[in-house]
């Protein structure tokens, strides 16, 4: 009885979280939804007499894999939400049809099969004295070759990730002298202005006011300014808004100079 209740609650939670993963536009929400699905699956493993897998699911998936996803999301840019323009006409519609058809097909196939009562793994567990010893016995005897191959695979993956993420330095590392020169050439050798005496708020995306009361666009982070402009979160004060817009334009220019000319498609 307890298992039935757990199953139905977690089934509803995991299916709705999976739907959220597919349909929410922001990538961070997708990651959170995937975390919910993984946690509910971990509980379902625990319910099905697989405590070791439940622990591994939480440690490896929700711990390591989700953190990796979130790190990469932050590197690539949190605001990289999907465009809603279809490149292939009718792709969404036919993908939905295919998905529903696939789900119905699988469900019917499972429903048609005559499945008896589960044998339960308690016997197999007790023979070796617990779930973990039983799994260990299998890994280190019958499946030891697969285990060794898995270790080779992990080393290869780690090396591959290092090779892929490595970037050769194309220009020599700037020395302290170069940095100092560049700072004086830039025309603003001092540190960037902080919120200032005349600040009216301490929000990080609001430009500071200089001692004479004028607005300094130097004080606002360009990336944050770009986000503000893209999301339309500009302050009412026209002077502040203009400073933010200017910083955002600088950021765009900077991005364009990094990316190089992008071909038209």
């Amino acid at each position, binding site marked *: 009885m307890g298992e039935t209740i757990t199953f139905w609650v977690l089934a509803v939670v995991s299916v709705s979280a999976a739907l959220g993963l597919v349909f929410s536009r922001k990538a961070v929400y997708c990651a959170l939804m995937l975390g919910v699905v993984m946690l509910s699956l971990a509980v379902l*493993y625990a319910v*099905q007499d*697989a405590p070791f*897998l439940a622990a591994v699911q939480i440690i*490896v998936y929700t711990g390591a894999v989700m953190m990796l996803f979130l790190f990469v999301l932050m590197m690539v840019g949190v605001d990289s939400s999907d465009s809603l323009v279809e490149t292939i006409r009718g792709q969404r519609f036919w993908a939905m049809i*295919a998905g529903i058809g696939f*789900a119905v097909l*699988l469900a019917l196939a499972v429903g048609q099969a005559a499945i008896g009562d589960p044998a339960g793994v308690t016997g197999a567990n007790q023979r070796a004295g617990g779930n973990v010893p039983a799994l260990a016995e299998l890994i280190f005897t019958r499946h030891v070759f697969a285990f060794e191959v898995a270790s080779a695979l992990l080393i290869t993956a780690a090396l591959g*990730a290092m090779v892929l993420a490595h970037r050769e330095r194309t220009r020599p590392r700037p020395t302290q002298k170069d940095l100092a020169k560049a700072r004086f050439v830039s025309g603003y050798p001092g540190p960037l202005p902080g919120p200032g005496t005349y600040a009216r708020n301490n929000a990080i995306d609001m430009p500071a006011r200089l001692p004479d009361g004028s607005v300094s666009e130097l004080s606002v982070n360009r990336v944050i300014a770009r986000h503000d402009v893209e999301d339309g979160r500009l302050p009412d004060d026209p002077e502040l808004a203009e400073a933010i817009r200017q910083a955002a334009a600088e950021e765009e220019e900077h991005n364009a100079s990094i990316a190089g000319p992008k071909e038209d498609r």
Partner: protein
Amino acid sequence: MTTHYLVLSALLFAIGAVGVLVRRNAIVVFMCVELMLNACNLAFVTFARQHGNLDGQLIAFFVMVVAAAEVVVGLAIIVTIFRTRRSASVDDANLLKY
């Protein structure tokens, strides 16, 4: 109860497949692939219980190992593509086409 678990696993797998087909952000596509792998794991664990032997749980464990390796390499590829193209959309990575 086995049937219930298998149907849940099939549903999650189908939802993941739809996500792979519909989404354009490479990272989200990757998350949907992870969802499909998880759905398979649920089926493996369910079958292990159904047959009363632990091989299914063992295979689920190996699937997790392979999935972890796959995520590492895949995300490294996405980061590399993002560095050169400034975009994580699967539509922008079309250089092999021409």
